[in-house]
């Protein structure tokens, strides 16, 4: 079987009296298409923050490709190939999408410290940028300041940045929230079509998307892992239904009956 | 050969030292109003510049005045660094530089073209160092602002006072920007000296005085003495009766009993309602006089060197009393008076009660 790329062991995160992450252990296999679901406030975003180093865990450890990275700074983890997107857009408002991507690509081609060369002087950089702009439908707005872009475009840029970092492990926090319905599927297909050695962890509340994307799922509740399994198992798990999925199909009937009955 | 005679007057007109600038400008204008603006056939023109007490600005303004306005004399200079910064220019361009305010001893040594009509702190402080021991003051703590003039004052007072058998258990230096004197005064109080010797730049004097009284130091038997900056005429009247009896030594008091001074004070007050001339004003007034007289004697001949030669050795009666410009040092030699704050016509004044005649700047002795 494929090897484990990223693994969290016994992670605990306390905010004052609140335990947002409670002894979470999670393994991400190479090439995984893994979804993390759970009720609001279950600690999904917090877990991502821990994995990427935005937060320091109260206890527990994280290993990436066999090496302990618990103490590493966020940027060092990125350099080892672990990249994320944010639930709430984190963009560079005064840069254009093109500049944003050119900067990111340069950084990952080892040019970040070059101060005498113009941004985009290297062919390799511009080519990669063009490719990304194309792929995320950003070519038409590539020279507008990010802050004036429509929400949908901003969301796409958010994800494009992550891909520009040459990820080997990609952590996506509700990537399609706010993306127009029509484009959602396309976006996730782009992600799903990443090379098979890239491992993806996805957080999302849109169940249609999650189930069409994920090969494996973890359910987080109140900071602890409730269960883990393939989509079918999860979809039929009564516990998951009780705390998270509810009984979606019956909703219309019950409500409809109540309303119009 | 142009027919105007230009005086570049560089002063702090804004910022903390603004009142120095105002007094000097007013006095200089008064002198011109009284003595006309045509001297030796030349029309005297005064160009006032504000250097905001920033030395490099002073220097640039001076340079521009020399190069562009072709001024014949530079004058003013509120603070020591400004004067020192400009001195090399005076040498380079052979332009006399008349210091009307800055009072650190060494300024006149910075260039052979510097002439001073204000005073030096050693002059004023030494007089107190002589007076105090004779009047039952044996133990004194000094408190000065931590910059050139303050250090001068401390040094010369201390030297003379100890020489006369006094004791200085502690010398305090307060930061120029220290808004609260309380801790320093408390320290003085705990040391229980006979008197406290103070030099602070004019303006801060009132605060020292008030906090001195508030701390009940007069009641604890500590006398307040200092150079005349402490009881600056500009503010003395607002200090209230607490200031009564404070002894200071200085070269000028608005209450100096001479007809010339009376005339000066009256004219000054008339031209500037609400303002009483202080020692800054008299420095500016006499500075103008020195320039005028030099122009008269040299008849506008000989350029800067001619003017300078004519400034050296001038002896005259100033509102402060007799004074002269020492030809060697180009520094002012004048009487230093011992004064006590008293009430006259319902107003507070420094009333002179003793005088030490013709005091040379002791800083030049060595």
């Amino acid at each position, binding site marked *: 079987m494929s090897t484990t790329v990223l693994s969290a062991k016994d992670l605990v995160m306390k905010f004052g009296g609140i335990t947002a992450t409670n002894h979470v252990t999670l393994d991400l296999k190479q090439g995984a298409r893994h979804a993390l679901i759970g009720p609001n406030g279950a600690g999904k975003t917090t877990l991502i923050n821990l994995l990427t180093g935005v937060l320091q865990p109260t206890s527990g450890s994280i290993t990436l490709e066999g090496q302990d990275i618990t103490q590493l700074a966020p940027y060092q983890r990125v350099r080892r190939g672990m990249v994320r997107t944010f639930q709430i857009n984190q963009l560079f408002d005064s840069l254009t999408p093109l500049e944003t991507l050119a900067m990111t690509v340069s950084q990952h081609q080892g040019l970040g410290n070059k101060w005498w060369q113009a941004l985009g002087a290297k062919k390799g950089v511009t080519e990669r940028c063009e490719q990304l702009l194309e792929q995320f439908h950003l070519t038409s707005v590539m020279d507008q300041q990010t802050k004036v872009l429509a929400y949908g475009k901003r969301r796409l840029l958010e994800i494009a940045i992550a891909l520009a970092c040459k990820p080997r492990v990609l952590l996506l926090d509700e990537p399609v929230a706010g993306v127009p319905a029509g484009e959602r599927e396309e976006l996730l297909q782009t992600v799903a079509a990443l090379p098979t050695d890239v491992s993806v962890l996805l957080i999302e509340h849109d169940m249609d998307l999650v189930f069409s994307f994920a090969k494996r799922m973890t359910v987080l509740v109140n900071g602890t892992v409730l269960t883990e399994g393939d989509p079918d198992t999860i979809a039929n798990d009564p516990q998951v239904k009780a705390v998270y999925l509810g009984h979606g199909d019956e909703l219309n009937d019950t409500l409809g009956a109540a309303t119009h009955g | 050969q142009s027919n105007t005679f230009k005086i570049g007057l560089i002063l702090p007109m804004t910022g903390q030292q603004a009142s120095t600038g105002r007094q000097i400008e007013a006095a200089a204008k008064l002198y011109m109003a009284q003595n006309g603006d045509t001297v030796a056939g030349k029309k005297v023109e005064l160009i006032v510049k504000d250097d905001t007490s920033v030395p490099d600005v002073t220097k640039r303004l001076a340079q521009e005045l020399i190069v562009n306005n072709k001024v014949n004399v530079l004058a003013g200079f509120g603070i020591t660094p400004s004067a020192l910064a400009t001195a090399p220019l005076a040498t380079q361009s052979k332009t006399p530089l008349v210091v009307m305010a800055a009072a650190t001893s060494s300024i006149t040594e910075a260039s052979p073209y510097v002439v001073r009509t204000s005073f030096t702190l050693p002059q004023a402080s030494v007089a107190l160092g002589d007076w105090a021991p004779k009047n039952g003051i044996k133990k004194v703590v000094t408190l000065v602002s931590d910059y050139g003039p303050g250090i001068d004052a401390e040094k010369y007072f201390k030297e003379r006072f100890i020489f006369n058998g006094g004791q200085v258990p502690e010398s305090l230096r307060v930061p120029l920007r220290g808004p*609260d004197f309380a801790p320093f005064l408390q320290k003085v109080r705990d040391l229980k000296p006979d008197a406290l010797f103070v030099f602070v730049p004019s303006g801060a004097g009132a605060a020292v005085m008030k906090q001195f009284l508030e701390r009940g130091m007069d009641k604890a038997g500590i006398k307040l003495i200092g150079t005349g900056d402490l009881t600056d005429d500009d503010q003395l009247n607002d200090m209230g009766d607490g200031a009564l009896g404070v002894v200071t030594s200085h070269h000028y008091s608005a209450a100096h009993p001479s007809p010339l001074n009376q005339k000066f004070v009256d004219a000054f007050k008339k031209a500037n309602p609400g303002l009483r001339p202080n020692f800054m004003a008299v420095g500016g007034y006499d500075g103008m006089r020195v320039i005028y007289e030099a122009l008269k004697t040299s008849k506008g001949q000989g350029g800067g060197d001619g003017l300078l030669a004519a400034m050296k050795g001038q002896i005259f009666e100033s509102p402060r009393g007799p004074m002269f410009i020492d030809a060697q040092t180009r520094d002012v030699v004048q009487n230093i008076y011992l004064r006590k704050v008293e009430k006259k016509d319902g107003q507070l004044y420094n009333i002179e009660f003793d005088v030490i005649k013709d005091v040379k700047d002791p800083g030049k002795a060595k």
Partner: protein
Amino acid sequence: MLTILFDGIAYGMLLFILSVGLAVTMGLMNFINLAHGAFAMVGGYITVLLMQKMGVPFLLCLPLAFIGSALLGGVLERTLYRPLYHKPHLDQVLFSIGLTFMAVACADYFIGSSQQIVQLPEWLKGRTEIGEGALMLGMGHYRVFIIVVCAALTVGLQYVLTKTRFGSQLRASVDDQRVAAGMGINVNMIFLGTFAVGSGLAGLGGALGAEVLGLEPTFALKYMTYFLIVVAVGGTSSITGPLLAALLLGIADVAGKYYIPKLGGFIVYSLMILILIWRPQGLFVRKGGK
């Protein structure tokens, strides 16, 4: 010893009362108002002029100084400040410094550049001493007065800001004006009122501080750094923060000058830098949760 402590507290209280208005406008309204010192100066001049020219008693001058600067603050808020709430901070700095320059020049033009001196009433001039030797406590009556006024104000302000709806409504308005208005908060009135009170407090501080710190046109600029230090060290999210910061600075400054006069200038700044490096958000940050 005790006297030094007492003086430090009084000095700190004075710094506090001068800065608290700034803590309100800057911390709560998120507006960098460097003209704060100008309002303090206005309060100071109101007091001095009323006392000197009209013989109004000192105690009456204090509320008048408050009201005068509050009115001025209110008028300026409506006319000049309001459009600037959304502008970048650097623009606010530029604007308020410009305003300060104008205020300084105006004070100079109308009142003159020399120091103004406040004559306190007799009962505030005295001094009471208790104890002997190292434990002697000497209290200037005026300093006692300052401490009492400041303490009363602190309690009042703290109550208003944390315990009343007004406080939360103010913070809500700052966070998001548009939505706050949509939730029924009268944002304009709240800002107007807060700004006026902030300016009034500055004016009161100026009136109380003129005696100790001296009053001249550059007052508006001279103490700006002190105000900023208090607000930065105290954090901008509460009233107690700046109070404790002001007390700390006051005591450190006074004690430092007393015990090691040679290092006088270093102490306050070094202390500030250490504190800020240790707690970059200021000493007292508002934290949610328990």
